[in-house]
């Protein structure tokens, strides 16, 4: 759910006019009877040689163009797919790049046109919406196969893809949040570097000490666009204070609890002290550049960011805890989702998804790219020790997976609830509202929404 790689927006205002013309025009492409260009990938699948099956894989890693740095992520996936085809000579896999940010929209369009891929990469938060489609394959029985060892994936991953007891995806990638801090800035202010037992009081005190308006230096980065990038950071804090988003039955909001207020008060204090770098565009590389340039002391972020800090001497520490809480973090697991293009292709597609999420492939991908291993067992495999040397601090993220204890509620209304929370958090950070009041207002609206179904 986070910006993992810079997306290439090339739209112009004219394109926006299309959006405006209504959902209409996009739905037009959905009409698909006309053969929308976005789904041409599926079309080639029909031309399989007798006895063999052709399937299409949508993935989110752009291959490097000529003259660019090679893309480790793409190369690793390509190698895995090649290995799969070698092991299964009767299955031909066509890889198609689809920007992950657009994958849900593109898939919606492709499904309308009946030209869906067989396997697609999707953000975990897309899964509840996808589960409403009859074309998305229910994998419950398949993952139950003992050989697959489904429980090897941590609950924080499995739960995201399990909607009403049914499994609609297998983990493709997982990351989590931790605090990346600038060692030089800590040293310059004579501060002790964060330890694994640290708490939010210490983070707040450090952030204030690191703030230096004269130098345009800030203690902590915080997004203020109300997007999921902001909200999931807050949710981690909520869990660190012992709270949760919804009540256990999922029928009411629970984030307006004392834990919710405690965690938001920490942000309020940082906001008041002007210790936050208020990031209005967290999808842009700006904050990473500022951290890299030593202008931001601490950055709550994930492993994908580490490669963007070549100039900063940084350390990584798990999230701080609140009194009576723990060092909880949040995972943003992404999924391989299988689509129904007839039983033969579903079987082939599942074989591919199964292969890509098998321990050997997870290990190979982690070593090649620095992706955290999606399976717990991979951490104990021989050869995994090389992983810690990919980037300084990456091992902290890998170990941090045990701190993933909860998942965001896998319900279709989540994006709306997220927006309400985002608004509450931003209003407090900007000093426009009081934590209790902001959370109460948001909870009340969330309750109405949940009651409406």
């Amino acid at each position, binding site marked *: 759910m986070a910006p993992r790689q810079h997306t290439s927006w090339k739209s112009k205002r004219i394109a926006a006019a299309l959006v*405006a013309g209504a*959902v209409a*025009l996009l*739905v037009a492409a959905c009409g698909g009877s006309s053969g929308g260009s976005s789904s041409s990938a599926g079309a080639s699948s029909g031309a399989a040689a007798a006895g063999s099956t052709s399937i299409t894989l949508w993935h989110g890693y752009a291959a490097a163009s000529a003259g660019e740095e090679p893309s480790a992520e793409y190369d690793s996936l390509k190698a895995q797919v090649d290995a799969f085809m070698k092991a299964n000579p009767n299955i031909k896999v066509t890889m198609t790049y689809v920007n992950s940010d657009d994958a849900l929209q593109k898939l919606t369009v492709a499904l309308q046109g009946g030209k869906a891929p067989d396997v697609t990469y999707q953000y975990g938060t897309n899964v509840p*919406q996808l589960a409403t*489609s009859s074309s998305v394959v229910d994998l419950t029985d398949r993952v139950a196969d003992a050989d697959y060892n489904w429980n090897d994936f941590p609950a924080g991953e499995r739960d995201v893809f399990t909607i009403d007891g049914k499994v609609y995806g297998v983990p493709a990638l997982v990351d989590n949040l931790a605090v990346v801090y600038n060692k030089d800035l800590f040293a310059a202010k004579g501060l002790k570097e964060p330890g694994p037992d640290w708490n939010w009081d210490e983070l707040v005190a450090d952030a204030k000490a690191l703030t230096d308006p004269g130098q345009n230096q800030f203690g902590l980065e915080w997004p203020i666009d109300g997007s999921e990038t902001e909200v999931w950071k807050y949710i981690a804090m909520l869990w660190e204070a012992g709270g949760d988003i919804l009540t256990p039955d999922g029928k009411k909001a629970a984030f307006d609890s004392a834990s919710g207020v405690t965690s938001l008060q920490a942000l309020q204090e940082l906001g008041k002290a002007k210790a936050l770098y208020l990031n*209005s565009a967290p999808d842009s590389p700006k904050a990473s550049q500022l951290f890299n340039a030593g*202008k931001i002391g601490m950055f709550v972020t994930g492993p994908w960011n580490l490669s963007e800090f070549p100039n900063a001497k940084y350390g990584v520490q798990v999230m701080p805890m609140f009194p009576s809480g723990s060092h909880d973090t949040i995972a943003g697991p992404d999924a391989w989702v299988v689509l129904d293009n007839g039983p033969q292709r579903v079987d082939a597609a599942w074989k591919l998804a199964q292969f890509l999420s098998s321990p050997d492939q997870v290990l190979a991908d982690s070593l090649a790219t620095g992706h955290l291993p999606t399976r717990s067992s991979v951490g104990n495999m021989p050869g995994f020790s090389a992983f810690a040397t990919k980037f300084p601090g990456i091992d902290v993220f890998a170990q941090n997976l045990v701190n993933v204890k909860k998942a965001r509620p896998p319900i279709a209304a989540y994006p709306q609830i997220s927006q309400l929370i985002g*608004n509450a958090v931003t209003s407090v950070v900007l000093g426009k509202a009081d934590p209790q009041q902001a959370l109460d207002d948001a909870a009340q609206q969330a309750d109405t929404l949940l009651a409406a179904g």
Partner: protein
Amino acid sequence: MGRRLQRAVHSEHVAGWAFAGPAMLLIGLFGVVPIVWSFVLSFQKTNLLAPARPFVGLDNYHRLADDPLFRDSVHHTIVYTLLFVPLSVIGALLIAVALNRPLRFIRLYRTAVFVPVVASTIATSIIFLQLFDPNFGLVNWLLGEVGLGPYGFLQDPDQALYSIVILTVWGWIGFDVIIFLAALQGIPHELIEAAKIDGASSFTAFRRVVVPLLGPATLFLVVWSTINALQLFDEVYFLTKGGPLFSTYVVVYYVFDLAFQKGLAGYAAAVAYTLFAAILVLTMIQLGIGRRMVHYSS
């Protein structure tokens, strides 16, 4: 197979339809069909994925009435349009007049004014993100040099929308300038000379002769800029995602948010149709007023 058929095939009707056919087919397929479909959609409850699409009558439209976010989006869209249209049209007129003179390097200046229009919106947005950075941006530094600011720009809920006005006016003014320049060069010189011989000052000649003759171009630009402004999306999507605190939520961004982030495509279609109706009415009013005020011949 008789002469009648032969004659029909050779008639101008058939040739005409044959020429117009492909374009009509495309417009029908990609224009009319989706417009109708989206209208149907606006009466359904759907996320575009689930196979069941129950009809809910006018529910989606009723829902608009007490949706605070829709109300805010409309409010922001109106404020934006009321600023964007006059600023870009009047600004462009002044620039066009300044550029309609035999200066050295005039082509360079004209090109410079037009460059932002050609540049990708996202690229210009990234530039403004840097310029408008409250702490590290060039704009606050320059303003600080003359004792103003610092401003929060895109970070401040009270300034974000105005910041977007500034950067979109900058981004689109070149288009208006080119239209005005073309119109200015179509104005016969004799008319201005005649006015001056009659004793008009340069300014009076401009106000009484040039501006009225720019009427058709002005009308076009006002209508076009209004439609453009009501459809603001890219900059909001990239720069603020409607934030901070919904302060830059505009109608088209809201449509996108509803349909593709919240899975409420039916409701999004209702919002889109409401916008469509508003644009239609507004454009008709503008053209109606224009017909009375604009003179098409000199």
